[in-house]
């Protein structure tokens, strides 16, 4: 027993280090090779340059793809957050038969194989006679974003003390005034957090966009297209680094806001000094 206890801490920390390396090594390679002067990703680096980054804004196809991604990301995040608000409010606020089932069904796309979802959506779009465009990509992204939006929003709405809204009415405020002065400010951080999460997911999503877009490429599709040319690889790595950084920042802000919202709604009765 004592031997195990003495041995374990050292072993555990090396295990933890390996674990983190496994998770983040690929991510670290990306920025490293993106500043390599040589086009082939190989150690040792032949030199350090920001040349590949400088080239990015001079690529018209990339600019187009960025715009497409922004349009899709903004539309999908707003749509899925609006739908998410309605569902999360219903699930956290009311008790009705089938509440759990509804929640489960909304969360299910999270674990469905994305390629299957993409194919089925393609079939549906074609059946409906919709021509493939950025609009169909938005619809597809809404489908994959809603579970994430729901997770963020239910955590922000849960524990929302109903008596806060009653207190507002009691103090003379109308239903709309109560929503504007109490409900909205309390859940705003969760809503912004949901928007950021959905935007990030849409920005990085490849499979569904690949199946559902027409001729317009989003950023991940543009990257996929570039991978065929070995000489373009450093540019892709530079772009990838930027996307990675953007996702990281957006998700961090989203998580901070989500926690703030959860704290707001759940601090009733807390902090008895």
């Amino acid at each position, binding site marked *: 027993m004592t031997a195990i206890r003495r041995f374990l801490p050292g072993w555990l920390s090396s295990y933890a280090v390996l674990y983190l390396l496994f998770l983040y090594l690929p991510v670290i390679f990306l920025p490293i090779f993106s500043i390599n002067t040589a086009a082939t990703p190989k150690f040792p680096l032949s030199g350090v340059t920001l040349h590949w980054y400088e080239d990015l804004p001079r690529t018209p196809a990339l600019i187009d793809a960025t715009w497409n991604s922004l349009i899709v990301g903004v539309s999908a995040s707003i749509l899925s957050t609006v739908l998410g608000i309605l569902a999360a409010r219903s699930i956290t606020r009311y008790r009705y038969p089938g509440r759990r089932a509804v929640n489960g069904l909304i969360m299910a796309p999270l674990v469905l194989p994305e390629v299957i979802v993409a194919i089925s959506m393609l079939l549906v779009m074609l059946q409906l006679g919709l021509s493939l465009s950025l609009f169909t990509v938005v619809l597809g992204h809404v489908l994959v974003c809603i579970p994430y939006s729901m997770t963020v929003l239910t955590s922000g709405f849960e524990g929302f*003390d109903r*008596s*806060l809204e*009653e*207190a*507002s*009415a*009691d*103090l*003379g*405020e*109308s239903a709309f*005034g109560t929503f504007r*002065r*109490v409900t909205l*400010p*309390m859940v705003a951080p969760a809503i912004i957090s949901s928007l950021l999460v959905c935007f990030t997911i849409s920005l990085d999503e490849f499979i569904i966009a690949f199946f559902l877009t027409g001729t317009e490429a989003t950023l991940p599709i543009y990257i996929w297209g570039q991978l065929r040319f070995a000489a373009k690889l450093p540019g892709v790595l530079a772009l990838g680094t930027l996307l990675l950084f953007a996702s990281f920042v957006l998700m961090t802000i989203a998580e901070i806001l989500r926690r703030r919202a959860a704290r*707001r*709604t759940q*601090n*009733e*009765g*807390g*902090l*008895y*000094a």
Partner: protein
Amino acid sequence: MLERVQSERTQSDRTMIEIRDITRSYGSFKALDNASLAIREGEFFSLLGPSGCGKTTLLRMIAGFDTPTSGSIAVDGQPMDGIPANRRPTNMVFQSYAIFPHLNVEQNVAYGLKRLKLDAGEEKRRAEEALAQVSLTGLGKRRATELSGGQRQRVALARALVMRPKVLLLDEPLSALDKKLREQMQVELRRLQQAVGITFVLVTHDQYEALAMSDRIAVMFGGRIAQVASPKEIYQRPVNRQVADFLGGMNFVKAEIVEENGASLVLDTLGFGRVRTDKPKAFVRNGGAATLGIRPERLRVLWDNATAKFEVAGKVVERHYFGEITHLIVEIPGLEKPLSVTETNDFGADDIPVGAPIRLGYDPEALVAMAD
């Protein structure tokens, strides 16, 4: 010589809240069953009862958060049917306090004033006045999350009082506080009510709280109002065993009605013999049996050769020490249940040995007859 005086009250006899034949059904369950009540202007009124007795439902109906299945409520002569909570002349202190966590203390207190469109100076003056009333002057800029439980409660009070309601509704406002703070707040709430002169309606399950603060109390069980009276009358003259039992300890003795007339009853009991008592106003005879009750503190230990005009004799079977008092369980020959006796510890009641013979004296006025 100390004189006994009735406490002076500022309240009028005008009815502020008229509750008529209120029933609230959820399917076959009745949360309120034909309850009627008149609460006077300027009165500190308590709705007292165990959880599920309908007291909170009734309070929420006065506030406008719940609608009666049948019956009506009027506040200050105005029928409240169909009037939503935001247009009623009532304000509420919620059990959770419901302090808006995204606003500071001042903004919380001024929340309802914003609708009144007062000029900025007047709004600030009223908010500050309300904060002063609850001794929170200077804490206006504190965030709601930086307050202690007692302070949150004061903010909730100030936020409601600043609206100058005709009726202030309080839903178990002290239940989240610790014992010491709770007792302090009881005194403060009572003082505040007398200072502002607004009708207070308090919901509580704590009988001591109701007794200590109220002008009158309505005791409720199972959606019905069992008794409405002053604290003293509720405690000393409960209408039935349920009310007596809910308000502290009570010894119950089986009795037979020997004689009944307009004002008094003559009862035959085993341990206490034949006794004559006042007939309670609401006494409705149910056959020949009745119950005689006496509070444990109304029985006193007779030491050595001391005598009393009325006494019973028995044997101590248990003794429990509670610091300032001792609780004795005394077996009386003929009584099916031993009597509970509480005695202050200034004469050595805490040293009475278990098994010792004992005599107990009582005042026949302490005996209360209850219908079975």
